């Protein structure tokens, strides 16, 4: 039983005067509960596109994304928004955080959208920030933290509301390799502790090594098992 299933998904971008860019073609994919999976592939292979469709941030041109028996790609925007809030956690490449909120408030944000009680919200957020090693930074604003620290806050925020699936699009791309490795190690630990499914795109071999499954994309097509680039 998969956590989420991608069925015959294709995505073609249409830009300008009917210029069509195929980004994904007929992708089929199962993601099981508790996976720690990397999506790898060269630039332009469709990694981001796949993650966006899985994250209900974008619509496929054809195909379905099944979660809990429902095709979430076919939901109206407001319900997709609820799906993202209740099921997913996101970590983007950079500038993930809301600049006007402190680290703590950023982590609390999704729980706030879900109307979690203030006391519980605060406790969970503080615990999560401690867990990612930022106990001393909870009242800092994003611009008062390093890139690695900001990404840790983003991971804490994604995890705090206890999602089923965390989607991370090149979370380490803007970090140096040492910081990148420690971030991915943190995600790995959280995956094992909380059994939360992680799906992340990367083209960093160091990061890829940490994954327990690697899905390869090339020219919008899935190549599994692992083959050469």
């Amino acid at each position, binding site marked *: 039983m998969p956590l989420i299933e991608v069925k015959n998904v294709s995505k073609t971008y249409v830009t300008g005067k009917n210029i069509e860019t195929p980004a994904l073609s007929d992708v089929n994919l199962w993601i099981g509960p508790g996976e720690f999976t990397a999506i790898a592939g060269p630039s332009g292979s469709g990694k981001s596109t796949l993650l966006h469709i899985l994250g209900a941030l974008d619509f496929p041109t054809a195909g379905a994304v099944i979660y809990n028996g429902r095709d979430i790609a076919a939901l109206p925007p407001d319900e997709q928004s609820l799906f993202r809030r209740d099921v997913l956690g996101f970590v983007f490449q950079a500038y993930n955080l809301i600049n*006007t909120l402190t680290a703590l408030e950023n982590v609390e944000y999704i729980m706030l959208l879900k109307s979690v009680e203030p006391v519980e919200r605060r406790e969970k957020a503080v615990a999560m920030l401690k867990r990612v090693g930022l106990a001393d930074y909870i009242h800092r604003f994003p611009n008062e933290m390093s890139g690695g620290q900001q990404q840790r806050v983003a991971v804490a925020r994604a995890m705090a509301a206890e999602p089923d699936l965390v989607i991370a699009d090149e979370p380490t791309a803007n970090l140096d390799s040492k910081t990148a490795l420690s971030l991915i190690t943190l995600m790995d630990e959280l995956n094992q502790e909380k059994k939360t499914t992680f799906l992340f795109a990367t083209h960093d071999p160091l990061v890829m090594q940490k994954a327990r499954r690697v899905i390869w994309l090339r020219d919008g097509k899935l190549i599994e098992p692992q083959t050469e680039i």
Partner: protein
Amino acid sequence: MVTFIKIAWRNIVRNKKRSLITISAVGFGLGALIFIWSFVEGAHVQMTENYTSLVTGHIQIHQKGFLQQAKLETNMAGYPALLAKIRNMPSVVAVAPRIKAVGLISSTEASAGVEVIGVDPTEEKKLSRLAARIKTGQFLGETTDQDIVIGAALAKNLNVVLGDKIVVMSQALDGSIASGAYRVCGLMDTGAEEIDKGVVLITHAAAENLFAMAGRTSELAVRIKNVKDAKPAALQISEQLPSSFEVLPWQTVSPVLQQWIEFDEGFIWIIVFVVMIVVAIGILNTVLMGVLERTREFGILLGLGTQRGQIISMIAWESLFLGLIGCLAGLILGLTLSLYFHHAGIDLTVFTAALNTFYMDALIFPRVNFSQVVFSLFLVLSTSIIVSIYPAWLAARLKPIDAIRSL
């Protein structure tokens, strides 16, 4: 909810420069509105006060029909009793009787048609500024009924000076020829040509005598506490008098002045409109810039599962805060200016000639009208909120994916 208010507030603090621009636009807009309105209000009050205190009074009481056709026959008998009754009414400050008739005035050299007004010197001084406008000589006194006050311009036409004798001729109430000789005791210069060339004043007793109007008068002129209350006060007085009287506020007596004021107020609406446009553009500009600048942030908020309505409320709060702070600044600015000049006056000596035509002085004293301040406040605040609808709509319409990609 609290978090969206918090984010909204922090966005204002975060971008101090942009917020200051918006706050200034709102503040100057509201300040200007309050000041312009109180200036105009002050000018209008001065205008009506000057006009009404010169001769019309705030309210006039006649036998019905006098306004339409001023005839000696349309008079009020037993006026002293009436006078006492009206003087005791709560809103009344002063009341003075007047006999009004047309006549011919002759010096040894020339003659002219004039309006002869018989006034009670003591009461008239409490009601109108005629006595204060005597340029040479003095106003009518209580002791003699042989004196006459004429306009300085008329004196020139008739070639008479202080102390000269002149003869007034007219028709009395009983149809007989009315004729009396008077000594010029004072020359008035009111600035209003129709008075300075066409009005002469004798005492009420002299006029009763001249026109065979013993115990009668043509008009009771009333001064009340506040000229702005003329209409309701007139209504109040008329309720207590027999229906054979007409009780007329100054607006009815001098519809022309009323029209000037209404025209002026119409003109103000154009200014209000322009100011509101400036305010609207100022706010729209900054809020819109703020939204476009934060596209990615809105994308993240939407991406995390924030509902569109919540984004809209966030931007609405932001505009509301900016509007409120701006309004506070505008209130302080507008009221400070208005109240300062309410005491100091605004010197418009340069325009004296034009101002006099409109019964205004060279110094204008703005007056703050509470309901106009509240209205301006409402106008500016609601503009600042309405104007945020477009940027809010833009932000809510964002697709999270486009916003996130626009890195």
